[in-house]
């Protein structure tokens, strides 16, 4: 008898869809469902969430039966620096102001690559900030404060 194996890629994929479907289904149950003729806010998403769970189940069955491509490398370092960059920009754009915030955002993102040297990162971020100032702040006059209240006395 063939040993029971499950394909990693599709197994995780199925789990993800079932989890997301479950999340939306649970949330929908907290809303008014209504009937097919007078749908409440929860009706349509509940139907979709159930479909998503079912599709996840189909993928799970496939995962048991077939083997697919492996997941491969994961960009841990990339995730560590790339994903926080926009979050940082969001947290600081009003407090620090547009220019310091964009400078630091670019700097953080720079460190996602092992090839980037600190000096290059600084120069790159500075150039970017200058460009952003000239184009967005000066020429287009976007209503962003260049330096925010955190930097003022």
């Amino acid at each position, binding site marked *: 008898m063939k040993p029971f194996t499950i394909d990693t*890629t*599709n197994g*995780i*994929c199925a789990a*993800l*869809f079932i989890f997301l479907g479950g999340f*939306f289904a649970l*949330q929908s149950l907290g*809303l008014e469902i209504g009937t*097919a*003729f*007078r*749908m*409440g*806010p929860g009706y*349509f*998403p509940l139907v*979709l*969430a159930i479909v*998503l769970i079912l*599709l*996840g189940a*189909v*993928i799970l069955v*496939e995962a048991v039966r077939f083997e*697919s*491509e492996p*997941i*491969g*490398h*994961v*960009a841990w*370092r*990339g*995730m560590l620096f*790339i*994903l*926080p*960059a*926009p*979050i940082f*920009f*969001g*947290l600081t754009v009003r407090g620090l102001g547009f220019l310091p915030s*964009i400078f630091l*955002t*670019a700097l953080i993102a720079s460190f*996602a*690559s*092992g*090839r*980037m040297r600190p000096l290059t*990162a600084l120069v*790159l971020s500075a150039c*970017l900030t200058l460009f*952003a100032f000239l184009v*967005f702040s000066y020429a*287009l006059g*976007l*209503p962003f404060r260049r330096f925010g209240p955190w930097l003022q006395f």
Partner: protein
Amino acid sequence: MELLDNLALGFSTATSLANLGFCLIGVLLGTLIGVLPGIGATATIAMLLPITFQIGDPVSSLIMLAGIYYGAQYGGSTTAILINMPGESSSAVTAIDGYQMAKNGRAGAALAIAAIGSFFAGTVSTFLVAIFAPPLTAIALQFGAAEYFSLMIVGLVSSVALAHGSIVKALAMVVLGLLLGIVGTDIYTGTPRFTLGIREYADGLNFVAVAVGVFGVAEILRNLENEHERSVMIRRVSGLMPTREDFRRMAAPIVRGTIIGSALGILPGGGAILAAFASYTVEKRVSKNPGEFGKGAVEGVAGPESANNAGAQTSFIPMLTLGIPANPVMALMIGAMIIQGIVPGPNVAIEQPALFWGIIASMWIGNLMLIILNLPLIGLWVKLLTIPYYVLFPIIMAFCSIGVYSVNTNIYDLYAVAFFGFLGYLLTKLRCEPAPLLLGFVLGPLLEENLRRAMILARGDPTTFVTRPISAGLLFIAFAVLVIVFLPAVKKKREEVFVEEN
């Protein structure tokens, strides 16, 4: 001959030196800002709109605004092709095969094909707007909630063709997209849904944030995976211009794309969005080598780009003839008109013929300028790819942060970028394609809204979908597409394709 007189009036208005100048500035600015990574058409227009308010003459300011619109759209396609970063829903389709072409070293050809397709579509649809604006408007008004719902169903059924892997995964991505699209306040009851109590998401997740996340950020992460083992961005650029073979292959898709785009573009609300997706589906269906799609098929760039531009053009029809915005960009145009002292409505063509026909004529001139401007610039854009990737991606991240933030100045949109970047990367690793998710995301709210509205209007009678002729016709098309997809012979052919792929 009234038409010729009108067009003559339009061209004499649009070709005044000042107006040509404003058109050029608009196209140029639109392209330059739109081509910045992560800044698509909507963000570009939101940024540049206030500039047009400062022009005193309403005709000039609208001509410039229209120029910005085409420029931004083309700029958005450029980033979709070069770095897989679509700035709006229609260029998400261009990204599928355009980016693959760029990876194969054919970025120049892809950009040229996009430009040529856009120009052809722009030319044809400008004349369509001039000739058919009033009758087409009448057709658009026949579309009620039931028709829209059926149209969305056609779009969804066709979306299976967007996938080039497992159909089940593609379907799951569409459904997930639909669910994500529903996030926000339910317009029927005012109930916030799936917002996790965050009021900043009450109006739904921002499209730009989702698109930048699942396409752009995920792509950056993928490129960062194997940094140490090999240089990721080796891209030998072979020839900037399309080959004779390319021209042969793109002709028919451009024509088909133009027809699809012109037809769907006039529908207010979502029509233009569907055009690019529909065109891709059609091209993949009629192609002799559907397996090439998703790997850099010329047709997959030429068709959707033409459809996209034709749709953009004909979406002016409801605005000019009814004063109704077909999409957010048109809503901005109407705002600009009102500020200039023109209230758009059914009388604009009669009361302000110079304005009405001037804008129509300037559409064509704008498209002409766009192609003259962009063909030489292609070399420059392609050069961007020779920038080392580790220098490029901090730039991308900085610009997309600015772009996403500038749409609504909502910082939660930036958090959404990070979340969808992670989700997009995860899904890519699990071999799920992002394009169907994006289609679902755009269609989700429309589908639900129109389904529920149709039911209210029909007093809860579901036969409304089949008793209304246009709706019934659309559902028949959807059914036909399904049959074709699952017909044994076709299915077998599909499976053969997958064998080839593996």
